[in-house]
Structure formats: C-alpha cells, structure tokens
C-alpha cells in the first residue's frame, strides 16, 4: 500500500492560489486588456511569488506571499460601489476599464514583492548610502525599509528568468505599460499628497494606487496570520510578537460594502483602561483609508463610512487565545503590553505630532482621527537620550517611575 502513495505536491498551494486569483472578477476583467502576453505574465508572476515566499520569506514578517495577495485580490473583487441612494449599484471591477484592471492586478501582485527578496543589487543605481544593507543592524529592518524602492529592478530581474520577452512590457513608455503598474504599486509607501508632480494630473493612476493602498490597509484581520502558533513557536522579538497579536484584535474580514467598511474589534483578556490608546490607534489605522477619499473619487469608488465597533473606548468582546500574554518576554504587565502594541503602529495612526509633518497632521485632523494618549510611549521611549529597545521595554514594565 505504502509504495503506491504519492508525495504531496509542494506547489499545491500555488495551484490553489493561482486558480483563486485567475478566477477572480478582478483578473477576469484584467484579462480583457490589450497588454501582450498578459495571462502568461500573471501566471509566471504568481509562480515567482510562490517560489520567493517558499525560499526567501523572513521569519520575522507576517505573510506577504500568495495568501496575502489572494486576500487583496478578493477584497478588490468584492468591492461594492454605492449609488446615490446607498444601494448596490455595481462592483468596482466592472467599473474599471480592462487596461486599468490589468495595471491594478499587477500592482496588487507586486506591491510587496520586495519583502520576499533580500538582494541589495536591486537598489536603484544612485541610492543613498543610508539604504545600503551594511548601514542596518538587522536584515529584516533593511528589507522592510527598501522593499518598495527595490521593486523596479527586482520585477525585471525575476520576470526575465521566465521569458526575455517580458522585458519589453516594462521598457515601452506608453500609457498601458507595466512600468505604470510598478509605479502604482510603489505608491503604497507614500501618502497621496507625497506622490509628486508626475502624477498630479494622472487621475487614473492616482485612483488605482489608492485602491491598492486601501485594500492593503484593510488586510489587518485575524485571518492574516495564526497568532497563537506564531507566539508559541516562532522566534522573533517583542515587536514581531506585537504585530502578530495586533492581527488577532480585528475579528471580521474587512471588505468594502456599498462604499462602507465595518470593523469589529476585540480585546485581549485581562486588559482594560491602559489599553485604550491601543484601540484608538487601531481605529485610526482603519480611518487612514479616508486619506484616500479624493483619489478614490477618480475611480468612482468612494468610501463613505467607516463603522468601527466599538467607535470609542475599549471593546467588550475578548479575543480567543490571547489569555497568557503576560508570559511573553517583554509583556510582563498591561502597561508593557500596551507599549509593545503601540510600537507596531505607523506614526500617522498614532497621530504622533512628534514624528508626522505639518501637512500630514492637518490631513489626519480633517479625516477625524481620534487623539491617541501617547504617554506610555513617551515615558518609555526616552527621557533625554535615545534608549535601546530593551531599555524602553524595561521602562514600560516599571511604568516610567520607580
């Protein structure tokens, strides 16, 4: 009997993901575009992504491979547009021109490709020495910092191995060229008002870039990673653990329904008042999609409402499986736990006036982001001199006073 058994195919997850993505409404629309060899290109791009995530994915990161891409493609495919009366009018994918859908699909599939590769040769030719890996104490931070800027060279290098003909898709300077898709993908690292002069009147690209960014921002829910297993078995530092926990605090899969999103939050067991700033920051994270309001109008896909449950304070619902957090190194008490969680948010979600420029701060105010009590961060991060991470954690544990 045992002789007849066949080893499982290690590429089965690729086949599943490829089937899921190629069958999605977004891809179906995109396949109608006139970009040459487009279907082959998408299939090969998925194969390349699978190979990279199988062999080169850094253990410190949450998933940036095919499951994440499936999630984004699915979110965009299910994106419902509102009509004037708030009823379902049509789906976003049906509104997009095939060429736009093609660019959007490639942008979505490539936006995090740099997170799966660690080669400095993909840095731009005239890059600053501060982007050189030798200047960074750990490779994971360098990868995260440079994953976008390395994308143009990386995508060309990797796709050339499948077919030399793919180079032509990037080298033309036409409007439907895939280098446009790469530019759209790269825009997710900046806010719309930072996108530069070139795009000032390119409303299509601005809209598509906003869709990528919003879909990515919403990919926050507990399905993104297996928090419990990661905490119990994977290495990593306090920041990694806090990121894994953060995903467990959003219980539902967040999709755009009739131009609105609904987010249900839960809290770890035995947390209370001290955790309030964490939920302020988490709600703000979802509210950041409102910063793309103008850009989404260009593709007639506005987000009219963000329903946050609860909209203020701390959720009543407890997260399952997050009961023994105080046994994690650096999470000794609620204050330290809150400190570690706050470290995971971008300064914009924290509405941190110390780290956000004046223009961005004004935008955050107009988007009605709630104020976050940063005292836990402030008393832990520094008194006068910068502190090491362990020093900050120590001060967070002792509560900033003795």
């Amino acid at each position, binding site marked *: 009997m045992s002789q007849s058994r066949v080893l499982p195919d290690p590429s089965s997850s690729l086949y599943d993901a490829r089937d899921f993505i190629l069958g999605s409404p977004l891809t179906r629309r995109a396949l109608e575009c006139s970009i040459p060899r487009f279907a082959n290109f998408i299939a090969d791009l998925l194969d390349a992504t699978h190979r990279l995530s199988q062999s080169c994915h850094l253990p410190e990161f949450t998933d940036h491979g095919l499951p994440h891409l499936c999630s984004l493609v699915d979110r965009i495919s299910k994106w419902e547009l509102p009509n004037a009366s708030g009823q379902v009018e049509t789906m976003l994918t049906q509104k997009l021109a095939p060429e736009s859908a093609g660019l959007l699909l490639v942008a979505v599939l490539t936006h995090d490709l740099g997170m799966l590769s660690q080669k400095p040769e993909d840095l731009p030719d005239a890059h600053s020495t501060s982007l050189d890996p030798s200047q960074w104490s750990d490779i994971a931070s360098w990868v995260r910092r440079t994953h976008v800027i390395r994308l143009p060279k990386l995508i060309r290098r990797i796709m050339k191995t499948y077919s030399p003909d793919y180079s032509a898709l990037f080298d033309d300077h036409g409007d439907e060229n895939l280098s446009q898709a790469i530019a759209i993908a790269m825009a997710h690292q900046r806010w719309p008002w930072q996108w530069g002069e070139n795009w000032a009147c390119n409303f299509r690209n601005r809209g598509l870039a906003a869709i990528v960014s919003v879909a990515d921002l919403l990919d926050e829910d507990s399905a993104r990673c297996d928090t419990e297993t990661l905490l119990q078995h994977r290495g990593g530092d306090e920041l990694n653990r806090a990121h894994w926990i953060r995903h467990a605090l959003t219980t539902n899969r967040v999709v755009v329904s009739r131009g609105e999103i609904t987010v249900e939050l839960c809290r770890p067991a035995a947390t209370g008042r001290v955790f309030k700033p964490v939920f302020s920051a988490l709600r703000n994270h979802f509210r950041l999609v409102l910063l793309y309001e103008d850009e989404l109008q260009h593709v007639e896909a506005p987000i009219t409402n963000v329903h946050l449950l609860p909209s203020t304070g701390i959720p009543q619902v407890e997260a399952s499986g997050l009961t023994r957090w105080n046994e994690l*190194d*650096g999470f*000794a*008490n609620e*204050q*330290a736990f809150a400190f570690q969680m706050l470290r995971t948010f971008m300064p914009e979600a924290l509405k941190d006036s110390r780290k956000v420029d004046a223009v961005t701060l004004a935008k955050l105010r107009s988007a009605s982001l709630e104020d976050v009590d940063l005292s836990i961060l402030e008393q832990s991060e520094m008194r006068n001199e910068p502190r*090491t991470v*362990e*020093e900050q*954690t*120590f*001060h967070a*544990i*002792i*509560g900033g*006073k*003795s």
Partner: protein
Amino acid sequence: MSDTNHEEAKFRLQQGLDYLRRHAIDAHRAGDGLQVTHYCSLALTQVEEYGKAHPQHRIELKNVRWAFILGMYWIVHDWFLMLVQSAIEHVNRDGNNATDYELIALIHNRLDSPQSQINLLEAAEIPAEWWSERGAPNGSTAEEDIVAITFVIELVWYSQPGGLDWRDLVDKWLVNSTSDNRIAARIPRLLEQLAYQAGLYSGDAFSDSKASTSLIENDVQSELFQAWLALYNHDHDKFESIHNELKYKVNTDHPSYVALFNLQHNALIHRKTPDSQFVSLPKFQLARSHQPAEFFRHFRESHIDSEFLSIAQAGFPTNSHAGERKTCLRLAMLVSLQALRTWDVGGWISGLRMRARSHLELAATSGDTNSLVAGIIDSVRGHAVLDPKDEPRFGICLQMLDRLSVEQRSKLTLDLLRSPPIEWRRSQGILKYLSDAIPSELHLELAEWSIKVESTNLLKNLWTHTLLDIWDELLHTSPKRAEVTMRLAPILKKITGIPFH
C-alpha cells in the same frame, strides 16, 4: 505614597528587573559583555533610585544579584565599581541576602584593588541554606550563582596561582554543601583546571602535557593547547603535526579562530608562513569584530592601552593616576582569565604582557621592588621584547636590580631558571643583567641550567648559538668559580670548537 502603591511599584520594578535579567543572561552566554553591562547598569541605577525614594521598601539583594555579579564580571570602566558601591547601599542586604552580599563584596574588593591579596579570614562560610536554595539537585541553577562562585575562585587563584589560598577558600565554602549540589559539583573540575593552568606561570605545565587533555572537553581547544606545549618546548615537529590537523578544523568563523591566530603568530619567529601578514592581520581584525566575546576582549585591551597612554602623557607621575594604574592591572587580569577559560594561551600571554608593562611602570615610578620582580617575571612569561634602548623606563628597572633583597634576587633567579625552553633566551637576558647580583648560593644551579640549555639542540631556534655569556663577568667574581668552571668545562670546550665563535 500608600502601601498599595509601594507594593505595586516594587512589583513592577521586579518584573522589569526579571526582564533585564533574561536578556543579560542571554548576552552573557553569547559573550556580549557590552550588552550585559548595559542591562546591569540600567538595573542598578533604577534599583538605587527606587531605594533612595523608598528606603523602607528596598529591593531584596538576592533578586537583583545578577546585575551586580554579571556587571562586574564584564567590567571595563571603573565607574561600574562606583555604581555597585552606591547601589548596594540601597538594597536589602539583611537576612538571607547575606551570602550574596559576601560574594559581591569579595568580587568588588578584588577588582577594586587588583594588586592586593584577599584576606581569607574576611571570607565567610557559605551556609547550608544558601547551598540548598541554589543548585539543589531538584531545583533550578541560576547562571549568576555559578558565575559568582567560579569568578571569586578565579580571582583568588590569579593573585597567587602557586599558592593555597584559593584551595583554602573552596574548602571553607564547601563545608556546608552537599555532593549533589549542582553548583558545588562544578567546582572540582575548575580546581583541577586552575591547578594545571598555574603551571603556565611556574613553567610546570609544560612537562606534563597529558594532564591537559583530560581537562579540556573541546577537541579544538585541546589541540590548540597541545600545540602551545609543543611550541613552549621547542618541539617543532610535534607542533607542525598538530598544526596541520588544526588548520583544517578552524575557519575564520570558528569560536577558536582568534586562539589559532594567536598561536600561529606567536610561532612566526620559529617557522615561516606562506601567508602575507598584510592579508592575515586585517582578516584577524575582521573576524574578531564578528565574535562578541573576542570583540569584547579587544575592547578591554584597547582600554588598557588608552589608560596606560594617559599615564605616559602625564609623564608617569608619582602622585596621581592611581585609578588609571588600577584599571590597567584589573583589565590585564580579566583579559588573562577570559583567555584561560577557553585555554587560549596566546590570550593569556597577551594579558601577562600588559600586566608586565604596568608592574614595570609602577616599579620605575615608585621604586617598589616587589613590582619590579613581578614585572620582570611577567615580561619573561609574557614573551615581551624588552630593550632599554627602546624603552627607557625598562632601563630604570634594570638599574634597580641591585636594590633587590637577597630573597627577592633568589626568587627571581629560581623563577627564571624554571622557565620553559621558549623563554630561555629572555630568561638569559635578565640573568645577564642580574649578573653578580645573582646570589652565589645559586651559581651551581645556574651552571646546571647552562649545561642543560647548551647540551640541547634547541639553541639553533634561539637566534644565537650560546647563552653562556651570562658567565662573562660572573665567572670571574663567583666565590664558587672553580666548581662552576669544572661543571661548565665540557660545554665550554664544545662551544669554543664552533668555527668563528
């Protein structure tokens, strides 16, 4: 502040200290002394601040002992000793903290006065309660307790490797322990190791190479040590044979790479190497920078140099720079001890050379003859190249040789005569300077040593054909001239038969 608030603050501080301790232990095991001292100074500063604010609710010493012990184990700058001294005033040292306090005080005092002898009467017994609480067969063993016990033994040993103090201390400590205690069980092996390594200073280790192999668990370390023994005994065939095996086992990432480099470079004067030193030196520095423990040792060595330089820049003053002198001696001691833990003889020699420089500087500055004797022996054992033409302060030291007491001259002469072959030429150099200051009762022993040296076939490796010029003046003035001449006659005849000699 209410009692509840005190308790809450104290509880949190203890949680924070436990967090730092876990990181400090990890860094200690990785050999990253700079990280360890970062965590320890952070902990002690906070403990002191808390103790000052809440004198009635101080942290128990035993709950923060790791920060005192590990911090001193990895000390570089003397301010850490000051921090220890002030922080310990603000913890609870009473009751079952007393033994931890004793151990911390022993380490502190030894580091604070690296030249002084420890008065063992001051060292208390370790009570049975301490042993049963720490290292019990069914309990956990804290890394800081193992460090404290072994570090104190090493420090006492270092002050007099050939003496019995360190053994007496251990006897006193173990009285109340049980044989199955996991900390106590480590001590016999350490004693055996230190007893054997004492021979590195007396020269005895090099006549008994078998003993070492049973003491060293790591194959590479064992082979490195065997190669050193061969080098010390000028057994070049054996050295080459061991070295040929070793060089294939140790790459630049290997934990023993620095030790291998030290071996190879100490052997350079005896053997040719095809490798360019312009390549090997930068490679050594690069590899060393990638190994936390080795980088830390280098950091300490550099700090010794910078402290010594500040003394030199001040013109070797007599009434100042005591702190810098202490730091040089303290760190030379710690560099040597760190090397011995991995049987890195090259590192041990390097530490001795640094101690020699400090002892001789002290002798030349203060006229202290004990420092002079210690400095000369350290120079010979540390393979230092001492030439009064290059180092005027060494010239001052040589002029002081006549001021040594008879006992000091006898001891110095006997120590030099006990040197292993690799040190013969340096010993002969000092003996020649001593010349008629060598006590006449030792002239016959000196003659026997000359015969032994000249009758071996080793001088060809010593850049000279004879070491007999010790006798140039001494033979004329020795009261035992006739007897010495009779003894030396056969080799004198042999030497005079060498053409052009």
